[in-house]
């Protein structure tokens, strides 16, 4: 009984032990509560409630994520936008957009006001409710979407709603070494994608002419697979973005050809080793060094070559499909307004100003002047805005070969682009086809096997993502996390 007496008064028996315990408990609870607060909060509804009006004054802070002032084209447009939004305190957070950082910011209720993102990510962001549809922004600010390149608009349109304002267009052209072509007895028509028999013949001839430490013809797998597939008339994704078409026999045939091009030159391993060993951006690049016959490449490489090796033997043309029509796979950036943007009106105005014709013209003039000062030709800008493209094309003066051919090929390619439509599983879809091509390049599977597997993976991802999208009625909203406060 005595023992019970003692045990029933533990506090009295151990007065000083209870305090540290209580204090520690308090610390633990406090810390856990603090950590709990670190969970996400739902995004705000500011974007949905915003009143967009092109005549209204906008003010307040505007945090812009993902856009950098890397050159005069960016600087001039940014300066013009700041002038247009004189009452707005624009804060540029430079550097590429990190999707995780962005989504975490939205989830925690601390979203930036405007983001600059590649168009390929817009579908994923939109389907998660991270960015807001711009229907009212476009109407209120009188943004003429018909002035933008249609394929660029398609890339930022999910289920009928535009989620971003596109800018810039990246397209592909054909670059070839005329000396090696001549030495091999090959014409550009044999390497522009229109004649597949010609491609294989030219590959053999160029590989022989270029020698063992060079690439005769580089089909640029894995990243240019969509271009080869399109060359054979295959679209990898249906127009509505819901059905993968990776196992289309035409796509399989295209992959077989593009891989065969590499196999005839020792296989992907040898070609890749030569690619990696080359001084791609330097004065000793593959054309200057005479170690490449031909390849399709993005149009910006024309400027690289002009900058670092203006006397290198190179010629340009467009890449074509098997019917001889010019084709190019479009890519580029875009402006999107996050769901939790606290200043959507200013964000919309900023996006509009950055992509309107006058801004592009000012940027093009600045670029032209900079090039003149360097004694180099101005090769134009692909803006993603057809009116701006046409106006800038007028600015571009005729110049010497091969740059004149490069300019013409660039603008022709820009008029003949295709793109994968926006979809809520764009990351998974891209990963599926890239993995498929890589498995073939690594000798693990045949093109038919690999693309069949990719088809299953991509379709499963698309079905799951679209199912979620459809279940939300096409209007996903950021849901507060379990511990979110009710103050938003």
């Amino acid at each position: 009984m005595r023992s019970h007496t003692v045990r029933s008064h533990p506090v009295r028996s151990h007065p000083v032990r209870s305090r540290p315990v209580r204090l520690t408990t308090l610390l633990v609870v406090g810390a856990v509560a603090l950590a709990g607060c670190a969970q996400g909060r739902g995004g705000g509804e500011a974007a949905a409630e915003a009143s967009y009006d092109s005549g209204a004054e906008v003010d307040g802070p505007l945090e812009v994520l993902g856009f950098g002032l890397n050159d005069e084209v960016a600087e001039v447009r940014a300066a013009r936008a700041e002038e247009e939004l004189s009452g707005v305190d624009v804060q540029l957070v430079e550097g590429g957009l990190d999707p995780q950082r962005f989504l975490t910011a939205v989830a925690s209720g601390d979203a930036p006001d405007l983001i600059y993102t590649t168009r390929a990510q817009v579908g994923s962001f939109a389907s998660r409710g991270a960015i807001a549809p711009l229907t009212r922004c476009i109407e209120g600010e009188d943004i003429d979407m018909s002035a933008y390149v249609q394929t660029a608009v398609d890339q930022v349109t999910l289920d009928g709603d535009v989620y971003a304002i596109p800018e810039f267009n990246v397209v592909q052209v054909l670059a070839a070494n005329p000396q090696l072509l001549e030495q091999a007895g090959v014409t550009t028509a044999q390497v522009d994608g229109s004649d597949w028999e010609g491609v294989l013949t030219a590959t053999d001839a160029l590989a022989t002419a270029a020698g063992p430490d060079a690439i005769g013809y580089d089909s640029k797998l894995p990243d240019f697979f969509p271009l080869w597939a399109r060359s054979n008339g295959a679209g990898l994704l249906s127009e509505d973005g819901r059905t993968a078409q990776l196992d289309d026999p035409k796509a399989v045939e295209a992959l077989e050809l593009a891989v065969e091009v590499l196999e005839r030159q020792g296989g992907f391993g040898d070609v890749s080793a030569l690619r990696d060993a080359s001084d791609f951006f330097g004065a000793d690049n593959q054309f200057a060094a005479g170690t490449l016959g031909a390849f399709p490449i993005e149009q910006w490489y024309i400027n690289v070559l002009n900058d670092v090796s203006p006397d290198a033997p190179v010629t340009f043309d467009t890449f074509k499909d098997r019917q001889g029509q010019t084709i190019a796979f479009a890519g580029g950036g875009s402006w999107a307004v996050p769901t939790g943007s606290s200043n959507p009106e200013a964000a919309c105005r900023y996006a509009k100003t950055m992509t309107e014709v006058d801004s592009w013209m000012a940027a093009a003039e600045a670029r032209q002047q900079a090039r003149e000062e360097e004694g180099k030709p101005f090769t134009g800008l692909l803006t993603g805005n057809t009116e701006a493209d046409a106006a800038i094309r007028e600015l571009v003066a005729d110049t010497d070969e091969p740059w004149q051919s490069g300019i013409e090929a660039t603008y022709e390619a820009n008029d003949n682009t295709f793109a994968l439509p926006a979809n809520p599983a764009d990351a998974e879809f891209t990963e599926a086809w890239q993995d498929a091509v890589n498995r073939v390049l690594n000798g693990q599977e045949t093109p038919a096997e690999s693309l069949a597997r990719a088809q299953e993976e991509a379709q499963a991802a698309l079905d799951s993502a679209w199912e979620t999208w459809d279940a939300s009625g096409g209007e996903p909203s950021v849901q507060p996390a379990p511990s979110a406060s009710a103050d938003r």
Partner: protein
Amino acid sequence: MTAVATPAAAGATASVRRPGRGRLGGAGKGRGPKVPLRPSQRRNRRRTVLSALAFLSPWIIGFLVFTAWPIGYSLYLSLTDYDIINAPTFVGLENYVRLAGDPNVQLALGNTVVFTLLQVPLYVTLSFALALLLDKAGRSMGFFRTAFFLPRMTPPVAVGVLVLLLLNGQDGLLNTALGWFGIDGPNWTTDSAWIKPGLVLMSLWTVGGSVLILLAALRGVPRELLDAAKMDGAGFFRRTWHVTMPMVSGPLFFLVVVNTIDGLQTFTEAYTAYFGSTGGYGNDAALFYAIYLFQQAFQFFNMGYASALAWLLFLVVLAITGVQLLVSRRVVYYEADR
């Protein structure tokens, strides 16, 4: 009732045996009598405890917020469908079921285990060999110690880029060196069979840290033991095998455990070389578990699934480390335990 040992009774017994403990209050079980403290003693003790907690609180809070909470929360997330931006939806064990049938999990686990099995023995053996050499370096030891450690300062991302340059099948340094001996080296960066050996070779770049640990251990090997063995006619290799290695088996085991865990979590170099920005090129042979986990978490934003993957990795590491600890009882000699 009488069988219950009360603190008071225990304290009374202890007070007879160790009266001196009573001065501190004897609060601990069997540590001393329950002598009531004077108010000033209580205040002193309270101040002491509060001070200790105040000094410990940054660590306690940091541990709770940045370690304990994320670990616990990731266990919860592994039972949910979570894409960062929307609230997690509880899905029970669905992620674990998916994980069991995911061929990429098997591939990534296999790659990771093979890499670790190749890397750890080579890494530890080379570290030990270099430490033995360095132990004989005499006055130039300082220079070599610094030289060996310097590569450790190279950021792992830079090492990932170096993989592509040094192991380039065309004109990489390794194949160039092999060429001097008439050997036509493989395409280390694209040939699936050679990717993991290539990455293992590059991991040896950072062997300097382990060399320093072993060097310190070698300095502690009693000279009299080595001299005695020498007197008995043991050559260098027998002395190393029978004397040195047992005496440094503790640090060697430590390196095995730490490098095994490191190998199972390998990520940066392989990701930079094969999955970062190589124009879409990747190779399944370099798909390590942490890379697959990262892809699920930060490319596809399947945070729930990625959390389940993380917990599987934790269990694998725990199991392997447990086996290593069991084995260590037979092969590791701790002088302090004797």
